[in-house]
């Protein structure tokens, strides 16, 4: 050799030999019993986490959709309820009004009937009073006449008077 090589940069065959063996032993043993299971486990875990995250996202979306649906349902229910209440109110108002009308007409009818009846009764009463008065008058007149005509002289004078009035034509 022309150049004297520093022993530091001159590889020893012994170390190269043992290093090659050591490296291949490591590569094979670690490759089979360490890296393979470790990497497999890590990959499994990673895919598991990924899956779980995806699932969580999906669940979240599902929950949101459900919530939206619930809200929509609630809103619909509320609307329905409002409509029902409104309808019921209207119906009740209508019923009340109807009842009122009916009551009024009934009242009117009853009133009218009552008036008719009152009038009838009144007329009947009046007629009766009239009849009674007539009878009483006749009776009184009879009694008066009887009393007036109890003596003969009065009778004759009265007949005369009447006869005078009834001048034969």
């Amino acid at each position, binding site marked *: 050799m022309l150049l004297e090589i520093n022993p*530091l940069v001159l590889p020893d065959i012994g170390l*190269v030999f043992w290093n090659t063996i*050591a490296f291949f032993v490591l590569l094979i*043993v*670690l490759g089979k019993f*360490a*890296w393979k299971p470790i990497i497999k486990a*890590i990959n499994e875990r990673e895919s598991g986490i990924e899956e779980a995250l995806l699932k969580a996202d999906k669940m979240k979306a599902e929950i949101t959709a459900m919530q939206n649906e619930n809200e929509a349902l609630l809103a619909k229910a509320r609307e329905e309820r409002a409509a029902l209440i409104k309808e019921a109110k209207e119906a009740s108002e209508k019923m009340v009004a109807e009842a009122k009308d009916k009551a009024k007409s009934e009242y009117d009818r009853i009133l009218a009937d009552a008036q008719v009846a009152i009038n009838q009764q009144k007329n009947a009463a009046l007629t009766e009073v009239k009849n009674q008065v007539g009878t009483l008058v006749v009776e009184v007149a009879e009694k008066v006449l009887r009393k007036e005509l109890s003596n003969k002289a009065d009778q004759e004078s009265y007949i005369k008077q009447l006869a005078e009035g009834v001048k034969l034509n």
Partner: protein
Amino acid sequence: MNCSRIKSLLVVCFGLFALLFSTSLLANENPVVTDAAKQEVSEGAPKEHAAKKEVDFNVTETILEHIKDEHSWHLWGNKSIHLPVIVKTNKGYEVFSSEKLVEVERLENGTYEFKPIIYKGNFDYKLIEGKLKIVDANGNVDKAANKQFWDLSITKNVASLFVSVFILLVVLLTAAAAYKKTGVKSAPKGIQSFMEPIILFVRDEVAIPNIGAKKAGKYLPFLLTIFFLILVNNFLGLIPFFPGGANVSGNIAFTMTLAVCVFVVVNLSANKSYWEHIFWMPGMHWSMKLFLAPIELIGVFTKPISLMIRLFANITAGHILVLSLICLIFIFKTVFASAIAVPFAVFIGMIELLVAFLQAFIFTMLAAMYIGMATEEHHHEKAHGAHH
């Protein structure tokens, strides 16, 4: 407001206290460290006289001694782990202890000197500048015999590499078992939760952006293995004592092996359009195509070579930096130099922690990028055609 002011004051006080404390501690430890350094000096320069060593402190030798590979793993004093030496010659394999390659001698000042001695096996073996060579009867390197000499010893770096492999196997297989036990549905716990972000980082920041989600899975085990091997060796290299201390990822042989692996993977997985872009760049004039082909072909090799050199240089540079700062104490021959050297070494050590991660990341990142380039589906072929 008040609270943070008190906090910063406390930090300053504690910092000052720690600095003083570390200095005094180092003052106590200093003789020991010096001994160790001397020892290494003696190892590196055996011809020097014991008496002279007090004066001559060779920084370069000391640093290189720490960065280089060794046949035994030095712990402290005269204690070392004697690693087996395995050699292959034309007379077959031979295994013996590295203890037989050195002779420990206790010096008068209580330190130890490690002298390389000749071991007589099938050939005469001796450590020459830390490397095992066949020597002749006179103790000189036998060049002819060394041509058929293979040193396959379990050196310090190899042993450290095995330690890192063991750590990786234990940690990652524990983590993998946890996945099997607790299943995918539960959160990660313990080691599992520590490893998972790093694995995910490699997958999401390195593999997928460069290779594409579809093909990344195929190359992910390779990239993860490279990343963790470099990372653990980088970190082990930062620990200054056993079981760290070896400079594995700062060794060219280590980075070369990994770079070659990347080179093989890249070129084996390369598709037709990758080769077309190298040898016959679409959408160019034919003269330009001829001009670009050799450049692109060189690029095929420079890519892994750059990987090899980048990791080697970065880690080695970091180690040299820390060692140089510590060596300042021995250069100035005063305890007070540690007041500057130690905080700086700690600071560089912190940066090294970052570099350890960063270099593992960059190596893996570039490997992924090269694989991505080789496997990329080009959808702009028609656009190229329009230029003709």
